[in-house]
């Protein structure tokens, strides 16, 4: 949304335009729920956090000054609520993991796939194969997307939060940093770790024979 659209929407909310509110909920609710899941232990808690977020949006709308986009402002409210709730409910995610996930120094690709010594150290020994031959309907099939969903669900909390905003929801790097309170460099490390793991899982899945074709 452009700043002008934000202003129009905020004015509509302030004068009680229900349709405007419904459109806003439609646009962001599911993404808010996804993000909340990174901070709290259960889906039920995440749903509560999103509910509280919407009430927070309404109660704070008169204080919204447009210094950030409406979108960023809403997602920041969510993160604040979710952190509070996560702490209050002694969520299983350790608090330190709200900054990083601790495995940022792991390689993106397993070291066993590169040559170890000599002049060609660091060159591929088992290079990835091109996916160009994979039909698009397999790449975008429900099953492939399920594999990706599962891979994302297994990511540590902050990696999941960053990839959700950046790649599922299309936030810019700056927007993701504003929402999550990360530096740009830290955000990028988390995103890279997350994408690398999802790619590895996808490579493993796609290199197996498609179901029903034998093998």
């Amino acid at each position, binding site marked *: 949304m452009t700043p002008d659209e934000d202003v129009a929407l905020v004015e509509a909310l302030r004068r009680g335009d229900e349709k405007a509110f419904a459109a806003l909920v*439609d646009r962001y609710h599911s993404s808010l729920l996804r993000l909340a899941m990174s901070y709290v232990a259960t889906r039920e808690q995440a749903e509560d956090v999103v509910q509280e977020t919407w009430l927070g949006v309404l109660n704070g709308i008169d204080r919204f000054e447009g210094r950030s986009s409406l979108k960023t402002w809403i997602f920041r409210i969510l993160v604040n609520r979710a952190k509070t709730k996560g702490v209050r409910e002694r969520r299983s995610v350790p608090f330190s993991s709200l900054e990083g996930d601790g495995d940022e120094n792991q390689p993106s690709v397993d070291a066993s796939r590169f040559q170890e010594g000599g002049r060609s150290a660091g060159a591929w020994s088992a290079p990835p194969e091109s996916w160009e031959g994979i039909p698009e309907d397999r790449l975008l099939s429900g099953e492939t997307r399920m594999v990706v969903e599962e891979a994302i669900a297994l990511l540590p909390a902050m990696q999941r939060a960053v990839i959700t905003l950046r790649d599922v929801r299309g936030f810019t790097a700056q927007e993701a940093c504003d929402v999550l309170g990360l530096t740009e460099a830290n955000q990028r490390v988390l995103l890279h770790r997350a994408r690398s793991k999802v790619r590895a899982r996808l490579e493993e899945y796609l290199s197996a024979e498609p179901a029903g074709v034998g093998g």
Partner: protein
Amino acid sequence: MTFRRHGLTCQQVVELVTEYLDGVMEPRRRARFEAHLDGCDGCTAYLEQFRSTVAVIGRLDVGDVPAPVMSELLSAFRNWSDDRDGA
């Protein structure tokens, strides 16, 4: 045949892909990165896989708002709006 193409190994290239795709690479580093890609099928395939991965993630369903949730929120909105009018 040289494997440390332009000073970057394949193992180093795979760590730089997100920085590259975000367009925030310092120009000299970017030139070295692209020069490596030009001569390396493995890294070219890797970059393509990475891009496809990001594209598939972008196609995940964000999901609809369940009707009971929406009606609960709209009712909260009406209460909020009525309170304001009454204030």
